[in-house]
């Protein structure tokens, strides 16, 4: 029963969502909207699970003295933002928005900007002409990089054209092949879930 019920729910929901795609009938649309609504509601509850787990894990680790400063900062953020939202609202010029724009956004942008530094170090390390395949990778990378720089556009339009060709033919062909494989893999996995063969999401079977 513990397993059969979720498998039955999964099968019915999966089959309904699949079938509704083909039907413009108002009943099918109503079923679709209703499942969507329940999806939203269930999602809201999962956030509570996340918050509870976050608080419990961090408090336990702090009590053991493990990485206490990091964990305290994490917990402080978790408490601070809702408190600001509850007491000051979330509209423009509220303390919540101030914290969002002046604390959260710059911190997030800082982590994102690390990507530029890591692209530089990965390019330095990764693009080496070790063998024939690596030479092709290196040549393609250089062509695309050069073609994307405005200064080369100003000198000649040949490089942007070559870049366009590399991106839209060999690269696109490879990517489409990968995408078809991924699509088929996703579809067969989804079918396994709907048919109750794949039960990892239940309890790791």
């Amino acid at each position: 029963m513990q397993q059969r019920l979720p498998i039955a729910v999964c099968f019915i929901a999966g089959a309904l969502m699949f079938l509704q795609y083909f039907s413009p009938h108002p009943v099918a649309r109503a079923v679709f909207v209703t499942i969507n609504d329940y999806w939203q509601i269930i999602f809201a509850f999962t956030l509570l699970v996340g918050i509870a787990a976050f608080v419990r894990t961090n408090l336990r680790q702090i009590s053991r003295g493990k990485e206490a400063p990091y964990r305290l900062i994490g917990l402080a953020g978790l408490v601070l933002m809702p408190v600001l939202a509850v007491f000051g609202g979330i509209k423009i010029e509220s303390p919540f928005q101030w914290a969002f724009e002046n604390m959260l956004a710059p911190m997030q942008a800082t982590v994102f900007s690390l990507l530029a530094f890591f692209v530089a170090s990965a390019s330095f390390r990764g693009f080496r002409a070790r063998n024939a395949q690596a030479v092709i990778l290196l040549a393609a990378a250089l062509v695309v990089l050069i073609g994307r720089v405005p200064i080369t556009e100003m000198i000649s339009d040949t490089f942007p054209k070559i870049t366009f060709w590399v991106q839209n033919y060999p690269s696109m062909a490879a990517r489409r092949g990968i995408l078809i494989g991924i699509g088929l893999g996703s579809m067969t996995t989804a079918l396994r879930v709907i048919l109750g063969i794949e039960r990892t999401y239940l309890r790791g079977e």
Partner: protein
Amino acid sequence: MNRLKTRWIIFGGLFLIVTLSYLTNIRFKSVASPEIQKSYDYLDSLPEGSVIMVSFDHEASSLPEIQPLALVVLRHAFKNNLKIIGVSLFAEGTAIGYRLLSQTAREYDKTYGVDYVFLGFKPQQISAILGMGESIAHVFPEDYLGTPTDEIPIMMNIVNYDQIEMVISIADGALAVHWIEYVGGQYHQNIMTALTAAMITTYDPYLASGQLYSVIGGLKGAAEYENLLGQPGGGNRGMLAQTSAHVYVIVLIVIGNILYFRGRKNGKA
């Protein structure tokens, strides 16, 4: 040279180059690529009063690149007297979306509720996207400011995507794929995206197949669009930094290979 020292040199070099680029006043003249011209022409061709939906599908982290992209779209739309319905499918895009929309509306003297509206954020992107195909007011019963959606003048004649000319997703990730696959595929809606540069290639297959109408990509795309609009802004300001960083990476690749071959000659590699 040890690994850590090499990293410090690489990172320090990039930091210096980008910082210096922003401090100098050199400007590139970016010519509009066919893709940018296509996006511009489409928005330009819409009759006054047409409604477009702009979805702020990004996080705060990508703001430096996203802001110029969002501004060119919003400015062009308001300049041509198009009406805008703003939404956000990322919590962090909500406040940013509202700020950008309000700021641009002020520039063009537009009225909230009549010329534009911001419906706010909805979690569970696929569910929200599909739900709006049935009824926008059902997914967003009230706008960001708490006004019931069906009482807002701009929303009076809008039920779902059928009354909207185009959805423009301003995204820093793969979220726009949901717009393409579900709204483009199921509801036959025109989709345009304004994307961070790193994400452009993800959308190439959709662009080539015609599922995606057009892409305004990265700072370069924003700079080209700004030039078409005749309003240089953040895109143009960032072009030198981006160009310098590209050249720096090319130089690093070349140095990396020289070191590799020298090491191999000396029997180290």
